[in-house]
């Protein structure tokens, strides 16, 4: 009887752990199966291919700009969501989070349509062309990634007890001073983690770029677009090289995010 009860607990633990480990092995196994199909020599040679270097450089540029704008916007937006009561909070919350759930494709289509509305047309004629042009890639990357940035910045500020700022207020800080001298330094690591995550996530944006900027070689081909073009035109070595670059960046960034104590809560 003791043995039966004992083994019931062991069986349960084995069953639930099996589910997790099956998942981990499946994910790891599938992702690792990329590596046998390219040699180190092919990999290093491909990295010197002008199309590959163009897409890497262009990606870093677009993603850099998009991440910078995202961070500048998401720090104050995340702070508001973490600290203040806002009207229509649940509607705002849903709109801000929408791009996480929304297919990137739809973000691209929505951008495309926006630049055919009167305000969009005005912008394209008077300021800058976006659709199917290089500056548009930044927009196409920004749009689906901003939510994750806001969520991780909000989580960063959530991790700082607001009473630090309250005490700072009684010691003479205005709201801005309390933000700059207390909230910001205390949330620093989480905010850096959020920026890193946003950057890595932005590097992988595909659907909205394809839709809004098109997949034109040596023009709008950020890394994922270049992967798509190379894989579908049979340049498997170039495609796999870029795939591995993205995979490594994703793993390292995610690990860094976790190491910095970053958090992003969709709730």
């Amino acid at each position, binding site marked *: 009887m003791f043995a039966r009860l004992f083994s019931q607990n062991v069986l349960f633990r084995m069953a639930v752990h099996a589910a997790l480990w099956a998942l981990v092995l499946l994910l790891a196994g599938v992702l690792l199966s990329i590596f046998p199909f390219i040699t180190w020599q092919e990999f290093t040679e491909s990295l010197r291919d002008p199309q590959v270097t163009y897409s890497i450089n262009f990606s870093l540029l677009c993603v850099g700009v998009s991440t910078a704008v995202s961070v500048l916007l998401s720090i104050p937006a995340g702070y508001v969501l973490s600290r203040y009561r806002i009207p229509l909070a649940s509607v705002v919350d849903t709109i801000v989070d929408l791009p996480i759930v929304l297919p990137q494709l739809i973000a691209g289509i929505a951008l495309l349509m926006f630049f055919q509305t009167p305000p969009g047309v005005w912008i394209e004629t008077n300021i800058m062309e976006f659709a199917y042009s290089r500056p548009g890639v930044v927009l196409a990357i920004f749009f689906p990634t901003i939510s994750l940035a806001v969520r991780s910045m909000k989580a960063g500020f959530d991790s700082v007890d607001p009473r630090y700022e*309250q005490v700072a207020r*009684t010691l*003479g800080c205005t709201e801005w001073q309390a933000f700059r001298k207390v909230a910001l330094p205390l949330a620093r690591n989480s905010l850096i983690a959020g920026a890193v995550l946003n950057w890595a996530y932005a590097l992988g944006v595909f659907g909205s770029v394809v839709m809004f900027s098109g997949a034109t070689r040596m023009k709008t081909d950020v890394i994922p677009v270049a992967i798509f073009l190379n894989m579908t035109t049979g340049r498997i070595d170039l495609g796999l090289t870029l795939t591995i670059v993205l995979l490594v960046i994703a793993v390292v960034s995610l690990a860094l995010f976790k190491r910095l104590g970053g958090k992003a809560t969709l709730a």
Partner: protein
Amino acid sequence: MIEIRDIHKRLGDFSLRGVSVAIQEREYFVILGPTGAGKTVLLECIAGLHPVDHGQVFINGVDVTDFPPERRRISYVPQDYVLFPHLSVYENIAFSLRLLRWPADRIEARVTELTDLLRISHLLHRAPRTLSGGEQQRTALARALAPQPTALLLDEPLSALDETTRIAVGEELKTLPERFGTTLVHVCHDFEEALRLATRIGIIYQGLLVQVGTPEEVFTRPNCRFVAEFTRVRNLLPVEQWEKTAHGVLCQIAGGPRLLAAEAPAWNGPVIATIRPENVVIKPGSQGDASSFSATVTDIEVIGGAADVVLGVGELRLHALMTRQSIGQAALQVGSQVAASIAPADVHLAPDSFLPPELQASEEQQTG
């Protein structure tokens, strides 16, 4: 001086319902009440951390109701101190002075002065998380005192400390108003702590300020059943009728003896006599003088060095507190016949209502 007038504030489950009180300069004022009474909300309204729903706050005669906290010159020390973890002890204390753009040498002089007085000058370069509870407490006090605030608000300053440190820190707090020329407002839920430290006590319950007075007043002259129970008056005896006589106020206790009280009640309704157990004097034997009445010991419960002796007087049960020693000397045991007496000054007549009659009305309005 801090004066608050008819403050109303709802905040989550807690609310304040018309609190008015004036706290004098250099006073050690303790806001005392059970958990959930709204003590912390009251502190935070004084500090300006929440806008009030209704009412006004005056500091030194200026209406600061609409001032943000940084304009009020009132420092707040939360229960767990909330030292800035990214700053050293020195920088924590200098925080407000840097905001005031004091020159570096003046800041250093002020920090040195404060840390010497609070005996933490050896900790200046430590990180707050490496300090003990008592050291954190003193650092938080130094930080709060640095800008020479009008008042210091302390939220349960002793409750995070262990037993031994608590008494030492309490003694130190007591000296702050005099040493630093500051007013202290201290929130706590422990009656004995309040008695030990306060110059005046305000008792708060469910967002209502029930009684304000010196420790002596609150302790010996509760103004309602709630205060009497909260301050552990164990004998609340219903008074059937009372009349003024030459010797004092003669009260007929329902189902019990007649007692003489020193003062007549200030109110017209039903009255109870509140008598602290330590003021019930017991002499063995049934022979007493004119002012005593005879009683039977029905129970003796020893708790530590003291004992709760329960007397039966007719249908009435009366609690007397005695030291173990004096029980032994008087050879008391269950069934002993004794003569009990209570000095008129120790018989206080309070309204027979849970809250003071004037608050009870607003209470019923609220819930009814």
